[in-house]
């Protein structure tokens, strides 16, 4: 287990209290049925690992409050919405690089774009 989790320690990565509340809200509403974090979860909604930097806080709050497309209106409390946005901010902070930040070699390896 310690071998498997090596390389997972990053400075400032531990979740704050608000972020932890967001994580609990994620679990309570089973967000994993439709959304992924680090490739873990469903396919109906987009992967939310990098959603915070891609969409911004205001957009995420609006979607969480009113729903959009296939995303239902979940009747979340204000605290839950704040917590979920904070949690997505934490995911974003330790997310792998975005498409525009990497390049592929001809032999199939992914490298950071210089």
């Amino acid at each position, binding site marked *: 287990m310690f071998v498997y989790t090596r390389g*997972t320690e990053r400075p400032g990565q531990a979740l704050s209290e608000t972020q932890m509340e967001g994580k609990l809200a994620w679990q309570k509403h089973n*967000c994993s049925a439709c959304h992924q974090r*680090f490739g873990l979860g469903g396919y109906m*909604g987009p992967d939310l690992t990098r959603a915070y930097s891609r969409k911004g806080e205001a957009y995420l709050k609006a979607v969480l409050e009113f729903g959009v497309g*296939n995303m239902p209106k979940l009747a979340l409390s204000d605290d839950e919405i704040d917590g979920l946005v904070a949690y997505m901010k934490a995911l974003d902070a330790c997310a792998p690089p975005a498409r525009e930040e990497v390049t592929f070699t001809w032999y199939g390896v992914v490298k950071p774009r210089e």
Partner: protein
Amino acid sequence: MVRSRQTTRVTWPALGFVYLGVGILIATLALGCLAMFHFAFASPGSRFTFQHSRPLHVSLAVAWIFGTVIGLVYAVLPSATGRPLFSKRLAGFHLAWFVFFGLAIVVALASGSFGGREYWAFPPIFAIAILVSWLLFAINFFGTVRRGKGPYPVYVWMWMTGILGFFFTYGESLLWMIPHFSGNPIREATVQWKSYGSMVGSWNMLIYGTQFYIMKQIEGEQASGFSKKAFFFYFLSLTNMMFNWGHHTYPVPGSVWIDHVAYVISLTELAFFVKIIADWSKRLDAARKHRHNTSYRFFVAAEWWGYLNLALALLISIPAINWMTHGTHITVAHAMGSTIGINTMILIGAVSYVLHGGAGQEHLGWQVSKGFWLTQVSLLAFFLSLVGAGVYNAVHEQSEVQHTMILFQLKPVFGAALVAGLGIAAGMFLVLAKLVWTHARHPIPQTEPV
């Protein structure tokens, strides 16, 4: 014609688990079609949505595999060890426990009470019930094996390792509740992927062990359970159980070296597994193939699905392709290809052997044959639809097209996948209905042929 000799009557709790497993598979297929319908034609306003149907489908799929393989091991263990089951009463209690808490989990998920994990999304309190269920199985298994004399053939080692491996990996999968893991997103994702991947390794041990035993029985070659090749495969599977999760952690920014080690081991196991079935199929004479035609067909189907999965797995093991496709429907095709194409094919073949092996399976006739081919053709269409959707998604998601827009454009493909899913369900229903109905009407051959 191969003569059969009645040796050990299959106990009623074993048959209960097998019948229950068949029922769970039919429910899994129905909920899978419903989940696909929800996915393709979402209705966010309704009370029972994809948020409910997906976890129910996934949990039942896991229950089909575990419940059935428990029944199969209970059924063949006395014959495999030469000793009666340690406690039939305990096995009966185990069956009742499994049914009671299985229903409780279904009710919890259907009513929207979630624990929030991927795959086993039920409230974590049910983890205790699952551990107790597994403990009951372990007591009966080791109680029976302890009375037998060694050395043990490879399938007994595989069952032992699968049972112990489950305790270990299931314990790991619960680590997400400890703050050291839950408070660190990367660590939590790594541990979740690791534990689920290894758990698949533990159920593969139970399934492959059962298949090895049945292949040996059909072939009538007792020494095959002790062959060097079989034990090499066992150690390969053991290594795989520890490492096969690696290819799913490419998107997790942890240690990279372990991903590549894991993938090489995982692919080697799959390649070796299909080779063993292919060799067995070549050795088997025409009379035995005919006598056990249903088991034989489904085992050989697992071999072909193994080739197809191997090809896809090789492609998605290339880091650049994995980077672009992980989290698209190509990953679903990979999961469905192995869960339905390999595991379910083996289990149906094994169920047919336990229910009809004593009298031979040649009398099962056209219904099983039609159902078999409908299942295979539909599964291929389902698999290709998912791969197609995954490729489209991978290409367009990279160009920042809205996810909802991609799903909308892919609706015809998901519609085709739904039709193919209905075909799989219909095909399997034809086979399972015949297996169970014929057995229920003529329950005499509840015995093991030698």
